[in-house]
């Protein structure tokens, strides 16, 4: 990376305010920054503020009845209802329950599986296969010339005499002529309301060979005029492929043809049998410069947390991190057909991928795992409802019922992999620091990785890195202004180290306004030593109350106010807001490193506790009933090469 950040240079954020190609939104240079930023600052610090002032919350991964498996599970709500629900309206769930969000979401991507998405062949009026059929052509011409009624009679007559061509089963002019993809686009266009609610166009590419999860969600920056020019990429041959490298080719072809922009977000490395973040080879091919560059180009974000397990860290890989075992799913792959082996874990989790990425960058010149973080739901019932006290499950059978705490989700008799419905987590959402609530602004913020993952709560989390933050910066009335002025936000690069300086970070977190207080703000650091050894360390940076770290350096737990019988808790412990400046005490300028923030809430009742209270269900042994929800920021990277 050749771009450098000098002290005082304005960030990538401001760069995006200039009319740059979206493709460059993530790349910062002082040249671009100076063009974007007025040379003479205004006296008033509030004047002409261009940086994002609020995080937008959304879900990049929601399935509706248009997904084959969701429909098979009984999902009834199509994309339109998914958007209505996300915008804050009350809907009736597929199981007949009235449901509404406590607060509307700011954006949503309906990401239905591209395979088998289309209910109907592409037969709408004027398509070659219709015109190639003489009868079809006759009807088409009749309709075109305003003789639709006559055509209708002709069609009925054909039917009654069994003369109807098999290929032309659908009545011209009806919605049925459109494919599900076009309906998906139409729903997004209808509910997209710039400034109020962003409805992205997207789909999920579901590479799942052998039950190993390599899924990616594809999100369009563009409107329907561009997205409707193409068909989503699928997995099944002959049109599709299960190799991500082929998805990247599809993305390139889309951008080349339409001039549009797409990005891909992978998820559930924990169910990939060690294939999500390879370091040696992928699909039988040794990783090379092209692989790492292409992956870095298209996969700027990773879905670090969702209903099928959390992917930030694993206790086997991070034995000293007492918060690493969070909503862990590590029994097997997606369908339970391959049981987990410990040696797979390193290639499945975010933190180890970040570490291995440093090594790959040294070997191949590019870090393929320099991605930002978001959370999302992967719910298959059109309902992005991930609060612990309003959790509507991952699938339709997992919508609230007296049975859902005791039912089985996956049970593979051959491998012994068994996952219960109570293990499904009420997680998560994507938080994006964008200037405004539009497709373009939010997509650009995703592309530059100014994002964080939350496991459900809507806390506001800031994370700035630079060389010159001082304690007094945490006392400023506008911490974010200082952050953008003196450093880079989450997702950025520190650039070369000035002589004798260590990286400094301005961190701040504000609790969910209707949620629980915060326990602590941690910084997770990973780095590579001169001999290639990879290391990691979790630092407690700022916390609630007057707790002091013990002899082992660990901060004592924050406490616990959960009243299990009533599924309640109080904010008498923890802090509503945490702000601090932290300097890396162990910095070695010769070692590449990454830093990301992790914000932990105080303990609250897990969704299972709300269920137990509401339905009176007795939990199975081992059911987790409490949770310390959290947020993970995109990292800030340090590269000795600058």
């Amino acid at each position, binding site marked *: 990376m050749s771009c450098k950040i000098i002290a005082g240079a304005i960030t990538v954020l401001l760069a995006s305010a200039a009319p740059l190609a979206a493709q460059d939104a993530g790349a910062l240079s002082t040249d671009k920054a100076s063009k974007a930023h007025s040379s003479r600052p205004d006296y008033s610090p*509030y004047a002409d503020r261009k940086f994002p002032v*609020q995080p937008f919350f959304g879900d990049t991964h929601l399935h509706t*009845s248009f997904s*084959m498996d969701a*429909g*098979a599970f*009984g999902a009834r709500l199509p994309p*339109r209802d998914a958007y*209505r629900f996300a915008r804050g309206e009350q809907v009736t769930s597929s199981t007949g*329950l009235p449901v509404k969000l406590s607060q509307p979401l700011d954006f949503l991507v309906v990401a239905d599986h591209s395979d088998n998405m289309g*209910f109907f*062949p*592409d037969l709408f009026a004027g398509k*070659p*296969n219709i015109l*190639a*059929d003489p009868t*079809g052509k006759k009807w088409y011409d009749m309709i075109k010339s305003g003789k639709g009624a006559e055509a*209708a*009679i002709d*069609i*009925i007559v054909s*039917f009654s005499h*069994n003369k*109807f061509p*098999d290929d032309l089963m*659908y*009545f011209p002019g*009806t*919605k*049925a002529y459109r494919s*599900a993809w076009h*309906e998906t686009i139409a729903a997004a266009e*209808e509910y997209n309301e710039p400034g109020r609610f962003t409805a992205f166009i997207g789909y999920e590419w579901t590479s799942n060979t052998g039950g190993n999860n390599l899924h990616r969600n594809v999100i369009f920056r563009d409107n329907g005029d561009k997205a409707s020019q*193409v*068909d989503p*990429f699928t997995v099944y*041959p*002959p*049109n599709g492929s299960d190799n991500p490298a082929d998805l990247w080719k*599809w993305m390139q*072809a*889309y951008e080349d*043809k339409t001039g549009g922009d797409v990005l891909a977000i992978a998820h559930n490395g924990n169910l990939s049998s060690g294939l999500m973040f390879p370091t040696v080879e992928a699909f039988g091919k040794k990783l090379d410069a092209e692989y790492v560059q292409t992956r870095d180009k298209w996969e700027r974000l990773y879905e670090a947390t969702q209903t099928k397990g959390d992917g930030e860290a694993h206790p086997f890989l991070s034995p000293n991190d007492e918060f690493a075992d969070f909503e862990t799913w590590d029994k097997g792959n997606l369908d339970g057909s391959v049981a987990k082996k410990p040696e797979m874990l390193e290639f499945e989790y975010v933190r180890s991928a970040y570490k291995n990425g440093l090594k790959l960058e040294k070997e191949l010149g590019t870090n393929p795992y320099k991605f930002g973080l978001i959370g999302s739901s992967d719910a298959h019932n059109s309902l992005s409802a991930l609060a612990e006290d309003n959790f509507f499950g991952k699938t339709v059978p997992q919508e609230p019922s*007296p049975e859902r705490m005791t039912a089985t989700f996956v049970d593979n008799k051959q491998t012994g992999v068994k996952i219960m419905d109570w293990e499904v987590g009420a997680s998560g959402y994507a938080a994006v620091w964008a200037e405004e609530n539009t497709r373009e602004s939010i997509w650009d913020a995703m592309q530059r990785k100014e994002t964080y993952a939350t496991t459900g709560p809507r806390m*506001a989390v*800031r994370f700035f890195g630079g060389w010159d933050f001082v304690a007094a910066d*945490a*006392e400023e*009335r506008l*911490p*974010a202004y200082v952050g953008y002025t003196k450093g880079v936000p989450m997702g950025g690069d520190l650039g070369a180290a000035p002589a004798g300086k260590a990286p400094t970070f301005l961190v*701040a*977190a*504000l609790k969910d*306004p*209707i949620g629980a207080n915060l326990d602590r703000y941690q910084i997770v650091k990973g780095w590579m030593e001169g001999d290639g050894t990879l290391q990691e360390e979790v630092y407690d940076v700022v916390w609630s109350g007057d707790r002091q770290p013990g002899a082992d350096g660990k901060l004592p737990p924050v406490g616990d106010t959960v009243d299990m019988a009533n599924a309640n808790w109080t904010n008498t412990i923890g802090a*509503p*807001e945490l*702000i601090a400046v932290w300097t890396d005490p162990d910095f070695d300028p010769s070692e590449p490193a990454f830093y990301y923030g992790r914000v932990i809430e105080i303990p609250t009742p897990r969704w299972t506790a709300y269920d137990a209270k509401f339905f009176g269900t007795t939990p199975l042994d081992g059911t987790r009933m409490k949770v310390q929800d959290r947020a993970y920021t995109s990292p800030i990277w340090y590269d000795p090469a600058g």
Partner: protein
Amino acid sequence: MRRVRQVLSEPLVHFLIIGAVVFGAWSALDRSPRDSDAQVIEVGPGRIAQLYQMFSRTWQRPPTPLELNGLVEAFVKEEIFYREGARMGLDRDDTVIRRRMQQKMEFLIEPRDAELNPSDEQLRAYLAENAAAFHVPVRIAFRQVFFDPTRHGDTLKADIARLLAAIEADESGEVPKDAGDPTLLPPAMPLMRADQIAANFGTEFAEALAVAPAGRWTGPLTSTFGQHLVFVDERTEKRDPSLDEVRDPVLREWQSAKRRTIADERYGALRANYEVIVTLPDDDRTSTVDADHD
């Protein structure tokens, strides 16, 4: 012919036609395979064009001859398995296929564009009937200075009162730059709905702000984070909007309601064709739990 046309423009007639077409198609497909044609798979120019186009729309280029051959072979394979499977009746009691059929039918009986194109009168009537859903709510623009109780302890009240007195004594009415405590909360909010304010500051604060005097610093107000002095810059009252102001949301909601009505009607029409006989077992196995929802 005119009368025929009139009749044909009725939505119900359309629906019946669609129904006839679909059922015709299904019954046509369902006919027992005749030996003479069951073993013939025709891949004609229409099908080729379709395969060709699907490929092109995926890859943004036409297939090579080799790729086209692959597409044809894949289609033939799928067709053979489909026919063999259907002949064995494998589709009959398959839950996935049954649900898929229901979905396809629901998709087919979706209203046509013309049925979702209301007149202004219809929209105005809908707006009047559902006025509560479209109120322009109270909106407030304000500034705030935050006090973190943990930083002030016992002097919190006095510290806030001192700042308020200082602002009132200052002729400019300006708040000193370093007043209050650092926070991620925005120092100023443009005109915002009360529910948006509640989403950022909590319900208690939003309710107190709604009745706070405008045009001067006042407080403290309690939020979910701490204490605040506030200055209400502007407050707009709740009112009923004109149709032009809310045309898009009213249209969306009208269409959404219409979709549901039409779906219910069309299902009702289909169901009317059936005599449904339900025979409950002699022993009553229904539960007495109050789990019914409307």
